[in-house]
């Protein structure tokens, strides 16, 4: 799995392939998954209906490899890290991010999943524009 970007909302069958990726590793006793969904946030009387994500694909690939390597260095019990981030329009309730960390044991799996998510937010060149139910839109930092 060398792709980090996925066109549109991430569907069930893609999540199942992420789940099963690497499951021949019989020493990975713990999987920690984070799944991010577009939230119908309320903001000043209007609510988010969708987010359009865009990315700088070449830089996503190099930053993703850097993120994965640095989390593996922090948590040596980790056996594998994969993630997928949407680009394009993802509606409220749909999934825009999936991270899976496999590790020998539960504590490292969960800590490494959390660290991967924080690094994705800091380092992955992805942008989002929120669309609201009054047809307005705005670029969102964070």
């Amino acid at each position, binding site marked *: 799995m060398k792709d980090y970007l996925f066109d549109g909302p991430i569907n069930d069958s893609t999540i199942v392939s992420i789940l099963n990726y690497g499951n021949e590793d019989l020493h990975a006793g713990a999987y920690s998954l984070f799944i*991010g969904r577009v939230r119908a946030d309320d903001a000043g009387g209007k609510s988010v209906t969708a987010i359009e*994500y*865009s*990315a*700088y694909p*070449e*830089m996503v690939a*190099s930053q993703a490899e850097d993120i994965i390597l640095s989390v593996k260095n922090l948590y040596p019990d980790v056996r594998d890290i994969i993630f997928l*981030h949407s680009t394009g329009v993802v509606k409220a309730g749909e999934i825009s*991010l999936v991270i899976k960390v496999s590790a020998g044991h539960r504590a490292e799996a969960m800590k490494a999943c959390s660290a991967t*998510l924080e690094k*994705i*937010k*800091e*380092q*992955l*060149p*992805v*942008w*989002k*524009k929120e669309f609201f139910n009054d047809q307005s839109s705005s*670029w*969102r*930092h*964070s």
Partner: protein
Amino acid sequence: MARILFFGITREITGAAELDYHASDLQELKEALEKDFDRLSVTCYRFAVNGAIRNDNTKLQDSDTVALLPPFAGG
């Protein structure tokens, strides 16, 4: 001419995914861009050169690819 890529709100401001500019360093590129697109001067962004984030006194060559990166908002 260096190849300049625009992302996020900077793409909306310039109306282009990419443009060509000649500049000896990032500071000179920044001034040229903000002259052509004045909303850029009130927009928060960093530069990447060939995929790595660089500060404004970084020298440019015509073979470089420069990207304007607003604050990341993934996750």
